[in-house]
């Protein structure tokens, strides 16, 4: 019944594939599944359709602390200079780096260390850096509550483990448009108000096989089942996500595009914390 009523109701809200405001779309940690003592570097896919993104601030927390812990460091009398030890960096001034503590897994039973526990990385993207420079307790609260315009907060888990087959980020080599593979970053021309089939082209080693020790202590061979999220500035997707075994989405170009040149993006997630993405610049003719 609910399906029927939802179907009958015209819900007029924006879709998640629409890039109509500042968005954090993906964060990749390298390595994707570090061991204690490893140095982890981060990169992000942050898009803003109107204003460039000036700052991306990074903080790190343990799983127990939760995603918001690092933001407390933004408050205090001395402003940004008093950032807590969990502070990882502010792009573009200082690229984020996380040194995984050597004792990160110490509280975990020996048997569980192969699976590990995640650290929580919080990312704040802001189009105006002054909001961070003027950081205060009020600013932090406003950031958390989303009251600051043109800001976006996202958080990501970084699994830390002693896995024998640690995870790697999937590599997206491009996007296949109506059966033709296009390398990431290469522009294609599409007709107005036309529908195109799109699939993700992954590197050969993108879908990994790995070992998992189950609750009975037996080691299982498993394989990743990635899924993909699609984004555009204009036009529309038939669905927001596609699955590893349901790979195709339909993209319909706008009839009256605001920008003749724009881009589509796809983000691949391997469900183990690994991420990769690709951009498909398009020209609408």
């Amino acid at each position, binding site marked *: 019944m609910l399906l029927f009523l939802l179907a009958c109701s015209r819900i007029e809200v924006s879709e998640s594939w629409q890039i109509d*405001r500042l968005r954090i779309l993906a964060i990749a940690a390298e390595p994707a599944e570090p061991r204690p003592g490893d140095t982890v570097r981060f990169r992000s896919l942050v898009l803003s359709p109107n204003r460039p993104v000036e700052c991306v601030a990074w903080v790190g927390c343990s799983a127990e602390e939760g995603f918001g812990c690092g933001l407390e460091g933004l408050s205090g009398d001395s402003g940004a200079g008093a950032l807590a030890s969990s502070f990882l960096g502010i792009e573009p001034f200082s690229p984020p780096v996380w040194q995984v503590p050597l004792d990160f897994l110490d509280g975990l039973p020996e048997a569980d260390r192969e699976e590990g526990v995640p650290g929580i990385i919080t990312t704040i993207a802001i189009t105006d850096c002054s909001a961070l420079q003027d950081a205060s307790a009020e600013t932090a609260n406003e950031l958390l509550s989303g009251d600051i315009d043109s800001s976006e907060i*996202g958080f990501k888990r970084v699994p830390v483990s002693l896995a024998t087959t640690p995870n790697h980020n999937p590599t997206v080599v491009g996007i296949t448009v109506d059966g033709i593979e296009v390398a990431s970053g290469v522009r294609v021309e599409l007709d107005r108000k036309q529908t195109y089939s799109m699939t993700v082209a992954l590197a050969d080693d993108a879908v990994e096989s790995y070992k998992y020790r189950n609750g009975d202590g037996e080691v299982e061979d498993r394989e990743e089942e990635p899924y993909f999220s699609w984004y555009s500035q204009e036009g529309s997707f038939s669905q927001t996500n596609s699955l590893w075994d349901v790979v195709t989405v339909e993209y319909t170009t706008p009839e009256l595009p605001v920008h003749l040149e724009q881009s589509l993006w796809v983000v691949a997630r391997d469900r183990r914390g690994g991420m990769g993405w690709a951009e498909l610049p398009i020209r609408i003719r």
Partner: protein
Amino acid sequence: MILLLLSLQGAFAQQPPPPPPAEEEPPPLLKDPVLLEFVQAPYPPAAQAEGVQGLVLLAIEIDETGAARNVEVLRAAGYGFDEAAVEAAKLFRFSPAEDASGPVPVIIEFEYGFILDSSSRTDAVPQEVVEEAPVELPVNLEGQLVEMGTRRPLADITLRLEPSGLETITDAEGRYQLRGVPIGETKIKIVHPGFQPMEETVTLTEGQVTQAKLWLRNLSYGSAGVVGAYQREKVEVTQRSISIEEIRRIPGTFGDPVRVVQSLPGAARSPFGTGLLIIRGSNPQDSGVYVDGIRIPLIYHLGGFESVINPDLVAGVDYLPGGFGVQYGRSTGGVVDVTTKEKFPDRPHISWSTDILDSGGTFTASLGKKKQHGIGVAARRSYIDALLPIFTADTGFVAKPRWYDYQAKYIYQGDAPIKFSALAFGFEDVLFASTPPGFSQGTDQDGQGDLGTRYSTHRILVNLEVPITESLHLRFTPSFGNDYGEFKLGNAWKAANSQWVAEVRAELPWEPSEHFRLVPGVDFLGGWSDFEIILPFDPSSFASTDPLAEREPFSVAETQTGWGPDAYVMAQIRPLKDPEALLISPGLRFNYLNIPGELQQFSFDPRLSFRWAIREQSRLKGSLGLYSQPPQPFQAFRPDDEMVELKPEKSLSATLGFEQDFGQVIHADVEFFYKHMYDLIVGNPNFQSLDTQFFVNSGVGRAYGMEVLLRHDPVGPLFGWISYTLSRSERKDDPDDDRYYLFDYDQTHILSAVAGYKLPFDFEISAKAQYVTGNPTTTYGLGVYDVDLDTYNAFSTSEYNDRRLPAYGTVSLRLDKLFTFKTWQLDLYLDVLNVIRGKNPEFEIYNYDYTESDYVRGLPTIPGPGFEIKADF
């Protein structure tokens, strides 16, 4: 005892005022006036005492609207007959006469007869009949008079022959005989209140007995048995019983009697009209639903459009919003008790109904020489699974809900001083929803696949009432059956529960005098359930909290038993000389529940209610009582082997009300209520691991308000009521919290108006209008993005339920047309839901990051045509 006779002299109709000789003759009438509403005059006591009958000839002026204006006596009968006839005739209502220009005023002659019926008739049989039909002449015209469409024999109706003037009256079987009718053509004329005048010509042949079966058309089918058709003894303080014929004409109910509850005071509007019972600020699961006193888990089929009992077998619906007696337990909300028919008609009756949702048939009959065995069977099947994909074709979803239900009842209708009946009934609802190939259903790999839910109930119950002594009876109602529920999503998720339930009610009412009645009873509920749960992850592992952790399939299958032999005793004390003047009803209920290894609890519920007729048409009523409710099955479970430490939820309820009758057909009912709820079961705020209890008894709540019901009984062409509820319902999850928050379905104002009107030519129109305050809702702001799951976590930016959705308003209409043929009837109708609808938001839905929101609207305008065929044999 008194039979009234009238005769309408249609041929004498003329238009007033008398035209001056110089003017033209008035145009001829194209349509004669037809009597629609007959008013029975009181039989003059003096005439009755003397056994005198009378026939008054009246001149009635009927205006363009069909109202009787002036009434004059053209031929007096004396003995008080003339005055009584005039007063009654002034209240007649006709369909207006019409000429080419439309309705016009006319004057008709009308014979108003006063005849003592057969039960009181001794020597008062109309003398002229005896005198004009000498017994020495042979019978040469005979037959039977039956009602057109239903074949119901019509007794005590006068047949008049023209031109001979012979008359006779039908017997109890509708049969008649006439002697010495002149050979050749003769007209049989029947004019009787409530029936369309009939005239039929028969030809009599010398030396033969002519047989003539006569058919008389009722002016108002279905209404004859309405008043008192379902009149339970009113022992509850707030017992709103509505007759079935009345209910089935309410628009938007698809003729379903149970859905009428939604239009009565105290019942909040359920989302999308799904029929959730939200009574006096209680949760839907807090109200009990019964069939013949036996509790069932669900009362509505999928979507809430129709109840699970075929309306053709339903005798009535008792709606008890609060203050009910100790015979009902395990509920802190309200009670809806559906009562099936306790007698079937003598002659076989079949009916078939079809609407946009389903089709079904019913067969009832009384068998045996003395019609001592009554049987009724009914079944329905929906086809909404065929229609719904038409509406959802472009959404990607293929949703296919379907249901069926069946009922079979046997009633012993013989002379033995026992009551015995057996009822078997059941239903199944299935919802199957799937996504087409190539369509991802979210991003969770275990959330892919077809969605299926199925639930079913099957019951057999026996009702036996045996008199032990003159003042002591045994009422025994055992029942047994199965409830099954299942939810499946792909191959990864499944939850199924098959529950075998035995419920036994036994009462021993003792009534030593009309001033005192004691009812001890037992309400046993017990059984066992086999449940199975399959999950894609182990809920006790870290995977249940870390979405990136590896999952391991989990399954559990267990059998659980439980039983609760509740007992109660209730007294009905009528201390005043007139037993109907005051009823005081104290009661005590003992509740016990034992689920071995999981839960054990007991409680006592004392209750007291009264009804006091302070004047003939005014009654005061009130109640005070404690109500207990055991935990829901999912609350009475913990994964470790520890006992669940939960008490029953409690509600202390008080009501005070006043009833006032305005004449015989208009009634007003005002009632105030207050409910204090405590020990409510809420989520455990200190829940940390699976060895902690999921739920605790820390919730409290309160609900208070006023209910008004103004009702016009279905007497004459009009029925309807206005229902208004002013209420507030609030909750606290912890008694120490500073403030209450609004209950999720709190609706300050609920105003419903229902009306139906019988039109000429068996048309009937009815309407329902409703205005309801919007449900509370909570405001959410921009969420924080979970990059791993590609979802936003919402944060409320306000207190819980701090504001309301816009108000809900709707009007639904229904138009019926009854076609009556000699041996069957066809009722065609159009039921239009939401003829006028506002935005009617049902709930607020947010976009992916909680920066925008929109309303999911209520049902659109839905025209629902349907028909019902009825035939008697």
